[in-house]
């Protein structure tokens, strides 16, 4: 934990002191967003956001999510931050990660905070969709399905995939219609955790839940499949934001819930650059592994090689030296 903090401090930049080009708010937003769009990653941590019984404080979570998105975009208010990413006419999907049940899935409090933020941008509540591969997984993670709701939708793909596969590199998969047809924009809302094959399962790996055949993308440590999948236009172009639930994180034994390797990181990680986000997330997990005396992901023969492959495809920045980390 201490090492993590030191490293963060070494590379962090102060927000609010950046260059302001032009005089109006729009110019300011444009300048900051353009800067943020490259490789800024925000890590917001609040001691005491988690409770001893494994719960979280919803009000603090919401503040953290808003602060993280502000820092990721370089804007001062949540309304401006979300407004720089979403328009009132958008239908916004929030892809949560719920494979591992209640204890190691994206908390409803995080997803609901994101929903509130998106609505600050003028998006109607019924045009926000919190979703996963299946309704069953959502329910097990503590969500109440609201498929036909006139308010916020919470639903699984539940077999509603496109009929024809789309090639993603060497593999073909049918995409969820929530991605291809229902939503104009997406937010990836993963959890911060280890993965037995891909090294870590974060913002880009989360999209395995958007295709009908994720098992076909598991060979070779999921490389280059994580990158190939995210490179598809319906993801690359629609995913505007990654907000990771790092309230509790897991450094080993994933993707299932392994309590002995979980720790209260008490953080929210946010970025517009999905590759930079995952690179920082991977480094946090590596440092916790080191602190516990676990082998590195490379030594464990599952380094996230797909990070550099994603960078090579132009999806973002994987080089930690080129990522601006903003910690608060």
């Amino acid at each position, binding site marked *: 934990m201490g090492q993590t903090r030191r490293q963060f401090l070494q590379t962090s930049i102060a927000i609010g002191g950046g260059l302001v080009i032009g005089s109006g708010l729009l110019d300011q937003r444009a300048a900051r967003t353009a800067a943020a769009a490259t490789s800024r990653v925000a890590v917001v941590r609040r001691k005491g956001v988690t409770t001893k019984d494994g719960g979280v404080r919803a009000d603090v979570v919401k503040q953290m999510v808003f602060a993280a998105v502000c820092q990721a975009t370089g804007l001062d208010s949540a309304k401006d931050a979300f407004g720089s990413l979403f328009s009132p006419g958008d239908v916004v999907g929030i892809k949560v990660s719920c*494979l*591992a049940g209640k204890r190691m899935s994206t908390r409803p409090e995080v997803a609901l905070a994101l929903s509130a933020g998106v609505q600050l941008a003028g998006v109607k509540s019924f045009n926000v969709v919190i979703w996963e591969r*299946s*309704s*069953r*997984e959502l329910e097990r993670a503590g969500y109440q399905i609201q498929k036909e709701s006139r308010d916020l939708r919470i639903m*699984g*793909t*539940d*077999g*509603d*995939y496109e*009929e024809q*596969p789309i*090639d993603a590199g*060497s*593999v*073909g998969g049918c995409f969820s219609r929530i991605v291809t047809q229902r939503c104009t924009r997406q937010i990836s809302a993963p959890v911060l955790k280890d*993965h*037995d*094959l891909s090294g870590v399962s974060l913002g880009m790996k989360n999209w395995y839940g958007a295709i*009908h*055949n994720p*098992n*076909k993308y*598991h*060979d070779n440590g999921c490389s280059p499949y994580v990158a190939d999948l995210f490179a598809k236009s319906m993801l690359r172009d629609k995913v505007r934001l990654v907000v990771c639930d790092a309230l509790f994180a897991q450094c*080993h*034994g*994933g*993707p*299932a819930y*392994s309590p002995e390797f979980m720790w209260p990181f008490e953080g929210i990680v946010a970025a517009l650059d999905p590759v930079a986000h995952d690179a920082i997330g991977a480094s946090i997990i590596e440092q916790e592994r080191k602190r516990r005396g676990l082998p590195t992901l490379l030594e464990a023969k599952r380094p996230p090689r797909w990070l550099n492959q994603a960078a090579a495809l132009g999806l973002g920045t994987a080089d930690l030296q080129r990522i601006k980390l903003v910690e608060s």
Partner: protein
Amino acid sequence: MSGLTRRQALALGACGACGLLVPRLARGQDEAGKNALVDDTGYPLVEARHYVKLDGKRVRCELCPRRCQVADLERGYCGVRENRDGAYYTLVHSRLVSMHTDPIEKKPFFHVVPGSQAFSLATAGCNMECKFCQNWEISQYRPEQIPARNVPPAVCHSMAKTEAAPFVAFTYSEPVIFYEYMIDVARLSAKTGVRSLVVSNGFIEEKPLKELLPHVSAFKVDLKAFRNEFYQQLCAARLQPVLESLQWIKKAGVWLEIVVLVLPTKNDSEDEVRDLARFVKRNLGPEVPVHFTRFHPTYRAQNLPPTPVSTLERCYDVAKAEGLYFVYMGNVPGHPGENTYCYKCGEELVSRTGFSVRQNRIAGNACPKCKTPIPGVWS
């Protein structure tokens, strides 16, 4: 969901015909994906065979040469075998997504009781991803994504008997991945008299294959090509394990036929076909039938044209020239290459058009003209 997808309609259509047979025994699932866990939906949760437990609740599947290492809550490449708390389970035991009674020639088996019927079935899933898969709408999906019926092994035999089918055929997707169900059904053959046929890609480990073989009457293997590059690039698999499976099947004395789906420019060179024929003759015997069948564009291979008939004829000629006794052409109804000829005297023995047998002149397992025994399972 806006109505049924084509995939769901196909699956339901196939099941629907059989649903009439056993309305009280087969229980369906009315919305794909609604029920993701078999133990919650009434489908049997059967522990997988052929896997080992590893540390950290991981398992290694030893059913097929992929030997997937699977973490807790994850599935193998096939998508139908899942790790639950350190134990490995099949999610497709008795969970059939397709059932139909077909002519045995459709499998195709040309040397197994011509003109008979095979009660044919499949589950979701496959351990390959062939870009040219004709049945990808079931083979490349997960079990919870396709409407299915719960058909226990004994019910499967009853359904075959009701259909007057002397055979049950494991086919359509890839039987290796529903191994536990397949072997449970096949083991009942001795009791019911309904024999078992396997239509497979042959991508299976030696131990489970040898465990299965005593219970089946015939095995058809899709030999996708005779080049490893083809297997790697178009099937996400490897050639060598398939060649080994062919030899184990042959050594076990189980009737074997081979099908090669010929893809223009991909596996149709004269050299490759010659190498394939030589392998068959040398390692399996010239009496093993080899079918060269016509490809039609589908799935992820829609950029290729249908196989020209002239290409199939060339494959046929090369294989015959190498000394194979029984070479066939498939998916070309009415072509003489569909017929069985005596390899000694050339007499036409079984005349076919498509999946129909027009005439079967084999008498007592032999050519009626020159009396040469014709290998196969004729009764």
